[in-house]
């Protein structure tokens, strides 16, 4: 099948890759950009392990074709830590609160929570649970993940004890 060139930025870096139109964004990032931090858990849009940010929105990269990302600004888990590897407050909160075990779902949860933390509207318990229920984790029972995001939100001034009505 004919390949097409597609251009976008990932974590601020310009990329031009040649992909088949049927290749998903998730595969494009992993296979053609070498960014294997984004994990594929179901490839049918349920588990959310492959969540990345596209133009500021959380997106399941298995439900979008690579060619649809033409001109987009993409962010992946590899862009969260500082260049020297220092964890950002959200990553550090996951570390301190046992927000991961096998680590496979973690990049998706981190990107989903990044969107929640960066959108500029403080959130509370109910909304956090609602948003994070988009993704599946099979190891933690979720409490560590919720504790992590709550701690990061507090640290970043994005937490409200009672969710806005």
């Amino acid at each position: 099948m004919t390949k097409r060139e597609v251009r976008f930025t990932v974590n601020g870096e310009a990329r031009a890759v040649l992909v088949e139109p049927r290749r998903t964004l998730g595969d494009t990032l992993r296979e053609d950009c070498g960014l294997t931090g984004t994990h594929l858990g179901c490839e049918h849009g349920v588990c959310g392990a492959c969540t990345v940010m596209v133009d500021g929105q959380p997106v399941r990269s298995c439900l979008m074709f690579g060619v649809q990302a033409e001109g987009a600004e993409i962010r992946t888990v590899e862009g969260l830590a500082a260049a020297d590897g220092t964890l950002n407050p959200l990553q550090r909160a996951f570390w301190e609160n046992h927000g991961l075990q096998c680590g496979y779902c973690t990049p998706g949860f981190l990107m989903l929570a990044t969107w929640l933390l960066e959108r500029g509207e403080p959130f509370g318990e109910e909304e956090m649970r609602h948003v994070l229920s988009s993704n599946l984790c099979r190891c933690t029972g979720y409490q560590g993940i919720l504790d992590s995001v709550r701690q990061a939100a507090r640290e970043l001034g994005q937490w409200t004890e009672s969710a806005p009505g």
Partner: protein
Amino acid sequence: MNWVGRRLPRTEDPPLLRGEGRYVADIAIGAKVVRFLRSPVASGRIATLRPPALPPGTVFASGADLAGVKPIRPALRRFDYKAVEQPVLPLDRVHFVGQPIALVAAESAELAEDLVEQIELEIEAEDPAVGLEAALAPGAPQVHAVAPGNVILEGAIRPEGFAAAMGAAAHVVEFAFRSHRVNATPLEGRGGCAEYDRATGRVRLAASCQMPHMLRSGICDLLGLPEADLQVIAPDVGGGFGQKMALFPEYPALVWLARAYRGRFAWIEDRNENLTASAHSRDQKHVLRAGFDAEGRILALEADILADVGAFSCYPVTSGVEPLMALAEYPGPYRLPAYAVRARGVLTHTCPMAPYRGVSRPVITFGIERLMDRAAAATGLDPVEIRRRNLHAEFPAKSPTGFVLDAASYIEALDEAARHLDIPGFRTAQAAARREGRHLGLGIAVFNERTGYGTPAFAARSMEIVPGYEVVDIAMTPTGEVEARIGSSPHGQGLRTTLAQIIADRLGVEPAAIRIIHGDTDRTPYGWGTFASRSLVIGGGACQVAADKLAAKLKRAASRLLQCGEEQVTLRDGEAVSGTGASVALKEVARIAHQRSELVSDSVGFNLAESGSYDPPGTFSNACHACIVEVEAATGAVRILRYLVVEDAGRIINPMIADGQVRGGIAQGIANALLEEIVYAPDGNCLSGTLADYIPPTCAEIPAIEIHHLETISPATLTGAKGLGEGGTIGAPAAVCNAISDALSSFGVDVTEFPATPPRVRALIRGAMIRGKA
């Protein structure tokens, strides 16, 4: 400094949080992509199998190409076990929907999938045996000729005097229940990447597995390869939960390809393959009959156990793992004077069974805990009181099947849970809610969990391959770090952290100076991997033995340098310290031992390496789970209002990791109780092929879980620790379903089938209402 017992953050986490983990699919990039053609029918004869037109650089292979590869043939040394064979790729027959028939390898996944679709396949379909009832019916289609009547295994115990014991009962409680089929559903599916090394003639297989050494042994037996010519690596593994113990046919096929074509081949399964064609579990039906005396003490229990094991037996544990565990462990934490049991493994034309976290214990715990509640109702006792009267209180105790139960806190855990629950307060709230037409219920589950069992326990199962021991090779490098090479193979359990905590205390060094090396048959001693709540107990015990031997060596070397007796040397804070307070850094000892060996070699030889092994008899952790639910009568929906667990796993090495194991297990147990079910159509087609059909819980369904710890130090293990990896899954189905049953008590019905999905709960209520009107 005591490192054991601290909530130390995991050393595993930072790379995983940066997206820098290396899972099999990450290693596989650039390899030829392998896709399998899988059977679309449950039973039949392959009439036509023709490859597509193959572009250059692509490969097709079927059973005919793999003619020299032996079938997978797991075995038990039992006369009542029938050893069935599973071909890596079949020559003539298919046995379940999803069974691999042929493979294609190509430069890209896209091309490989296109070519698989172009394979010409005709199967003469035959009537399949699907489901326990169909497989056991007279005249049922036979899954394998070697197992007439589709019974692959039958075990039974019936002691003399059993009938008399049952006959003395004042109350007899009898019921049947059904546990439906589930899939462990690790978020990363199975996958492997096999690479032929032309320089050495060896193959390196990276596989998402729990038992790398066992996988190597299994593949080498099938292919007739020397084990030295195959390296198996378990890199970062995205969850296993037992499913990734098994030797699946895809792995020997990959190694065969790598050797036959002297190249690099990878198969990364998709979710549909994982759900329908990896392994399933817990498909069981039990009939229980128990006698109680007038005071509610159990006198006799009779169990008839059926386990649907699918079309083949899983290597190495065999399809005996579910029925035999149910048979052996039914009495759990209870004093049971007389126990009779029959357990059968039943072959069907469905995906094979493999262990899943807890194995049969979620099912038997459901059974015995439902039994206790029914007996409480029959005898007029409170559910807590009837349990208290029947639990073991003196240790060591002996089970009817011969297990020695080491010190535990069965009654204490129950009482502690009852205290936190405020049961009288709940009963008042429950009665008030009922007056408003709301249905609240409280459920309890008490259980013990056999963990950390070594070779004798597996040998007693008559396994042809007997797992159990662990060996740890430990060494200090010339710069003073400690390398511990382990046969266990963690995949999310945090063993790099907890084992380092154990070693750190023995050597007086910081955990940061310790590297736990695992998951690589080239770099670790032969061992059994991570499953059955064993690694912290057995691998941890072996680490302790090895570290103590290394500590002795360090003390001997240091005593030369400090010019004192070795018995005067203590190791702490990275130093060896003499009785007079003189000290030498362990880094210095290490450098000298390797590079100025003339100073110490007459006492310690030429390096700082030791080996430790451990093979314990086993220990029983225990817990009490308690759950409060609300059932919506109009829809059958169940909401969990509160969940608490009192857990006793002996000495806790890292409380944060222990709680994570408990919480994760309970989430899977709640899913087992309420949500997850693999459904087959009568023709053998699996209907649960996506995560929209098979529904693991999200954080919206899993409540906050309160955990209270008791710490009965095990006299049966070196570290005092007991395993706790499976307990969450074991207690939750019983606790949740008992709570639903309590909520439904005003309708006079209870849960005897799980998952208790809304349609099932609604059917119970509707049935009760219809009967009420009749």
